[in-house]
């Protein structure tokens, strides 16, 4: 795990829940986390009992041990948006529940652990879990938000269900918003090196140092090797329906989400930005392909950005994704005006207005920026209001980031 961004003198304009590591959360959610699929149902019953926008379900389905999954669960359970955690174990899985519980307790958060095999099975564990979450919420109610500055905010971006409009409207508009956030000291993150194949050279030119530029090129080459082994690029049938023909065409459109700021560093899932700036998140596993596709769907990438500290995610879509996420709110930016007509109840921003000639890129970028501030101040995004709390965590393996990936540390 990397260093945590420190607040410097800047007029506070947001509000957040202060955690012991110095980070601040824009939400105060209770997590119910299952430690193997066998504990999923019990955990879901506990969450469903509350039917509350701030009680979220996360978990890891696998029974076999995996360092990446353990590190991710720890990073997620100690995310600044999280105020308390109930861990639900079956009892015989490999995830080290006591270690995870200790790490969460050491972060200053109230935490409880229920082992189904030691608690009389499904019905009684659900009943105890409901009591436990109630008690966690009482403790969390004591927490009062404090002033938070823009340079304490971490924002991620992802595109899903991309089409031929994404790279013309929503993605470059997010790029404008990112430029402004970075100028104000926030940390911004873009990702999926497998969806940046073809952009490696222009990205390297934007790197803060030549060494970082080389690391970026290497990470995209790794992604291409990995996807070649999988037999498919990151290209879905809906991309083609929407006018995208090739992976590199999709990449060029996706790339414009990053805006025009210099690239300050290359992170891997769980590494937090050490300071403000623009960061690329390398989500493709290291070593020989072992566990299948790097990210089986968009929410796996969102979860990785959250594990790297993102308080909220800007999600651009052309075909019309409706997902949100557990832990951190998702703001949906619709690229395609025809999709917006069909799915406006799911879309926070209509970037398709650019194609109709009703708005400029700068205007939509400004609207996205205002949405970021509003959601950071507690306003619910549409996916959040609708109760979307998707979550995916699968097997992966990573080596730590190499020297030269975070030149900003040396400044």
């Amino acid at each position, binding site marked *: 795990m990397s260093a945590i961004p420190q607040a410097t003198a800047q007029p506070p304009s947001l509000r957040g829940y202060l955690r012991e590591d110095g980070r601040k959360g824009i939400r105060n959610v209770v997590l119910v986390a299952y430690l193997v699929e066998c504990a999923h149902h019990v955990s879901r019953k506990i969450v469903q009992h509350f039917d509350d926008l701030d009680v979220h379900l996360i978990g890891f389905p696998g029974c076999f041990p995996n360092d990446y999954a353990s590190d991710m669960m720890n990073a997620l359970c100690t995310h600044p948006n999280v105020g308390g955690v109930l861990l639900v174990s079956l009892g015989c899985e490999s995830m080290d529940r006591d270690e995870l519980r200790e790490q969460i307790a050491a972060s200053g958060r109230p935490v409880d652990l229920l082992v189904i095999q030691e608690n009389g099975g499904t019905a009684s564990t659900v009943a105890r879990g409901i009591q436990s979450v109630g008690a966690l919420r009482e403790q969390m109610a004591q927490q009062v938000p404090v002033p938070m500055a823009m340079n304490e905010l971490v924002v991620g971006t992802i595109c899903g269900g991309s089409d*031929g409009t*994404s790279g013309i409207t929503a993605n470059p508009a997010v790029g404008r918003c990112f430029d402004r956030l970075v100028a104000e000291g926030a940390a911004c993150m873009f990702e999926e090196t497998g969806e940046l*194949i073809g952009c490696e050279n222009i990205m390297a030119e934007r790197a803060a140092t030549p060494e970082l530029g080389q690391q970026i090129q290497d990470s995209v080459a790794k992604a291409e090797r990995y996807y070649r082994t999988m037999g498919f*690029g990151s290209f879905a049938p809906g991309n083609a*329906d929407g006018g995208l023909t*090739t992976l590199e065409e999709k990449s060029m*459109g996706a790339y414009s989400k990053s805006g025009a700021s210099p690239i300050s560093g290359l992170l891997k899932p769980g590494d937090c930005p050490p300071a403000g700036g623009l960061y690329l998140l390398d989500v493709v596993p290291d070593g020989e392909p072992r566990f299948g596709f790097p990210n089986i769907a968009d929410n796996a990438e969102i979860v990785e950005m959250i594990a790297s500290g993102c308080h909220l995610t800007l999600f651009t879509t*052309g075909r019309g994704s409706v997902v949100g996420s557990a832990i951190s709110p998702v703001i949906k930016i619709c690229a395609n*005006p*025809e999709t917006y007509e069909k799915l406006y109840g799911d879309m926070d921003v209509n970037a398709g207005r650019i194609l109709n000639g009703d708005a400029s890129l700068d205007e939509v970028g400004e609207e996205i920026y205002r949405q970021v501030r509003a959601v950071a101040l507690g306003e619910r995004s549409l996916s959040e209001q609708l109760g979307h709390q998707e979550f995916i965590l699968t097997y992966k393996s990573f080596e730590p980031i190499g020297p030269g990936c975070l030149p900003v540390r040396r400044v």
Partner: protein
Amino acid sequence: MNDKAAAKEALILLHPSDNVLVATRTLRAGTRVVVGERPLELPQPLGVGHKMARWDMAQGEKVFKYGAPIGSLLAPVAAGAWVHMHNMTSDYLASHTRRREDRPPPSLQEPKP
């Protein structure tokens, strides 16, 4: 949609060095467009976000969008032609679809005016 001004807005050039234009709304076959100085009638429907050849191009030629190469042509195309899976391919990893590649998706076959 048969006056010049509307036809011009229907397609945009993203970068001066591009050899394809992008549709800003769904266009019916027969829509009249002006490409450069040349008036054309669309030989096929074009969905929003889809690409149209800016001029005649040869097989093997690179397709440019955003000023960057996005793949190569599998067949010669005429100005005004739809450029997609049936006549171009990636220079990196092949794309996959859930239907036959040489057929426009149902949503494009007869777009509403």
